[in-house]
C-alpha cells in the first residue's frame, strides 16, 4: 500500500514537473585508409528526457539507439558477458542496439546533492587518458576513439556531494558489477597486442580457469571518496578508491606432475589513493594527477595547457606508469611512458573548429594521430571530417590497429 501511494505521489509530481527533452542524431561513416572500404556506416540517436521538479530535484533519463550497416566493429553479436543483468544493452539483431544509458534522480538536501540511479561519475583533471577517471568501466568496441562520454559504461550508483565554502566532499557507492567491454574475436578493434593478451606457450596443455565475476550486491560493491579544496589559485584533490579492476588479472601456474599450465583470470579488488591539482597562472594552466594502486603501481600525469595564442589551446600531457613490484611484469615494461599533444583553434566566430590530437607511447614507439575539423551549419547542425591514424610497433597498444586507420565523415543534429 505504501509503495502504491509512493508511486501515485511520484506520478503527481511528474505531472507538475517541467519536462524537457533533447534529441541528438548522428550519421557517421568510417572509411579504412588502406583499402578505401567502409569500416562503419552508423546512425546514432540519443534521447535525453529531464523532469525538473518544483523543489529543485530532477529525474534524468538518457537512452541511445545505435545501428551500423557494416557490422564490422562488433560483427555478429554484442559481447555483453561482463554486463550487469539489470537493464543492460538490448541487441536489435546483429546490426543495432538499444540502451538505457542513464536513469537517475538527483535532489538537494540541506546543501548536499544526492544522486541515485544509473549514471556516469567523472573525476580527475586529465584529457584523453583515464587515471582518476576510473569509476565507470569502458566500452572498448572502438578502442578509445569515441568520446569518453559515449564509451564510458554508466553504472548503478549512489552519490553524495557536499559543497562547503571552498571545498567539496563526495562519496560514491557502486552496486553494479559491469566490467570493461572487450571486443570479440574478429572485431575491428580486437586486442592482439601481448600488452593486453599474454602469449601462451606452444605445445603445453592449458587449463583455463575463468573465475566468476564477483556479484554480491553488498560485499562486492565499490566505494570511493573525494575531497577537493581551493587553496588560493590552486585546486587540490584527494581520492580513495576501493574498487574492482575492470580488467581481469591473469596469473599462471605450471603443474610439473601433470605437465599442465593453469591460467587463471579473475577480477581483483584493490585500494587506490590519488591526488590531483590544477593551477592557473597567466596564460598557463598546470594539471597533475597521481595514483598509487595497492602499493603495486604508481602512475602520474603532468599536463600543461597554454592559451597564449589567439582563440587557441595548446596542451601537452606526460603520463608515466611505474610498477613498484615485479609480479605483473609479464606483459609490460616496468615503466610505461605516454605523451599526448593537443592543439585546438576556433575560427570564424566559433563556427569552425580545428583540432589535432596525438597520443604517443614512448616504450613501443607507436601511437595515434587525430586531426579533425568541425563546422557548424547552423545552431543545431554540425558536419565534421577527421582522420584516426594509428602508427608504429604492431605489437603496441596503438600500433596493433595500424590496419584500422580511417577517415571519418559525419553529420550531427540536435533538437
Amino acid at each position, binding site marked *: 500500500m505504501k509503495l502504491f501511494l509512493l508511486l501515485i505521489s511520484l506520478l503527481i509530481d511528474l505531472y507538475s514537473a517541467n519536462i524537457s527533452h533533447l534529441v541528438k542524431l548522428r550519421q557517421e561513416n568510417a572509411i579504412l585508409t588502406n583499402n578505401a572500404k567502409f569500416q562503419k556506416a552508423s546512425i546514432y540517436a540519443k534521447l535525453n528526457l529531464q523532469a525538473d521538479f518544483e523543489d529543485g530535484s530532477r529525474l534524468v533519463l538518457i537512452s541511445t539507439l545505435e545501428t551500423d550497416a557494416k557490422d564490422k566493429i562488433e560483427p555478429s553479436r554484442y559481447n555483453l558477458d561482463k554486463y550487469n543483468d539489470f537493464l543492460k544493452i538490448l541487441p536489435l539483431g546483429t546490426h543495432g542496439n538499444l540502451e538505457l544509458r542513464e536513469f537517475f534522480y538527483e535532489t538537494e538536501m540541506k546543501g548536499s546533492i544526492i544522486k541515485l540511479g544509473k549514471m556516469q561519475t567523472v573525476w580527475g583533471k586529465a584529457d584523453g587518458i583515464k587515471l582518476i577517471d576510473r569509476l565507470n568501466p569502458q566500452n572498448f568496441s572502438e578502442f578509445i576513439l569515441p568520446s569518453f562520454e559515449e564509451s564510458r559504461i554508466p553504472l548503478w550508483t549512489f552519490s553524495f556531494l557536499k559543497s562547503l565554502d571552498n571545498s567539496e566532499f563526495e562519496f560514491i557507492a557502486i552496486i553494479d558489477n559491469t566490467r570493461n567491454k572487450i571486443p570479440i574475436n574478429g572485431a575491428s578493434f580486437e586486442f592482439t597486442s601481448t600488452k593486453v593478451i599474454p602469449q601462451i606457450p606452444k605445445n603445453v596443455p592449458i587449463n583455463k580457469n575463468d573465475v566468476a565475476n564477483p556479484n554480491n550486491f553488498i560485499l562486492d560493491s565499490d566505494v570511493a571518496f573525494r575531497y577537493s579544496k581551493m587553496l588560493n589559485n590552486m585546486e587540490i584533490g584527494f581520492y580513495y578508491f576501493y574498487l574492482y579492476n575492470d580488467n581481469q588479472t591473469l596469473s599462471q601456474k605450471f603443474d610439473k606432475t601433470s605437465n599442465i599450465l593453469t591460467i587463471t583470470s579473475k577480477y581483483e579488488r584493490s585500494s587506490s589513493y590519488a591526488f590531483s591539482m590544477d593551477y592557473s597562472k597567466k596564460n598557463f594552466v598546470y594539471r597533475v594527477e597521481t595514483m598509487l594502486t595497492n602499493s603495486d603501481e604508481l602512475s602520474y600525469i603532468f599536463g600543461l595547457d597554454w592559451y597564449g595564442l589567439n582563440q587557441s589551446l595548446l596542451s601537452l600531457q606526460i603520463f608515466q606508469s611505474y610498477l613498484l613490484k615485479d609480479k605483473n611484469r609479464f606483459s609490460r615494461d616496468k615503466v610505461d611512458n605516454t605523451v599526448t599533444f593537443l592543439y585546438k583553434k576556433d575560427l570564424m566566430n566559433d563556427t569552425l573548429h580545428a583540432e589535432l590530437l596525438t597520443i604517443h607511447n614512448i616504450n613501443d614507439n607507436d601511437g595515434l594521430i587525430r586531426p579533425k575539423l568541425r563546422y557548424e551549419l547552423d545552431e543545431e547542425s554540425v558536419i565534421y571530417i577527421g582522420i584516426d591514424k594509428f602508427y608504429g610497433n604492431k605489437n603496441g597498444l596503438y600500433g596493433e590497429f595500424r590496419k584500422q586507420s580511417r577517415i571519418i565523415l559525419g553529420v550531427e543534429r*540536435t533538437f
Partner: protein
Amino acid sequence: MKILLLITMVSSLWAMDALEIVNRINSRDDGQHVKRKLKMELIDKRGKTRVQETISYRKYYGEDKKTVIFFISPKRLKGTGFLTYDNAIKDDEQWLYLPSLRKVRRISSANRGDWFLGTDFSYEEIKKETKISKDDFNFKLLDETDDFYILESIAKNKKIAKELGYSKIISQIDKKIFISRKTQFYDTRGELLKTLKSSDIKKIDTIWTIHHMQMSNHQNKHVSHFYFSDVDYKKDIKDNIFTKASLKRRR
C-alpha cells in the same frame, strides 16, 4: 611662455576631468547582485544568423566578483556553463563545463582579448560590463557637448594593447547616466576594429540598465546583438550557485 603655461594648465584640467568621468563610470551602481537573461544574435557577413540564449548570475564579494553563465539554447549548447571569479588581488579564475566532457575544466583567464564564445565581445569586455580599467588605459577628454563627453582611452603600453586587441577606444559618454552610448575600438595598428552601440537603457530598481548592445566588427563584418531581459537586482542569489558543483548540475 604664458600661453604654454595656459595650455599645460588646461590640458591637465582636462586630464583630471577625464579621470573623474572614468571614476563616475566605474562607480555607477550596477547592483550588489543580478540575475538576467541574455539573447545573443550573431550575424556573419553573409547575413547568416545564429541565436544563443543564456541565463547569468553575478554577485559582488567586496572588491571581488563572481559570475556564472548557463546556456539554455540552442539545445546543442544547453548545459554549457561558464564560471568566473574576478579577483581584485590575485589572478582571476575561470572554469568551463561542457556536457560532452562531463567535467569542469579549468581554463586560463589571461586570454582577455579572445572573443567571448563566438561573439564580437572580448572576454575582457564581458568581464568589465561597460566599466573601464584604469590599470590598462590613459584617458583624455576629447570633446564635450550638451549631452555627451567624448572620452579617449589609450592603452598604456604595447603589451596591454596586444593583450586586449586594441590600442585606443573612443567613447561617447551620456552625461546624465555615465554610460557609453557609442564606443569605437581601434586595433593595434590604429585602424577602426569595432563599434559598440548601447540602447534601450531603462531604470530597473533604481539602476540604469542597458537592454540592447550591438557590437559591429568592421574588419570581418560580423555583428553581435545582445538583448538583456528579466533583469532582477532584488532577488537574493545563493552563494552556492557560483561553484563547480552548480556548473555541473545546471543542465
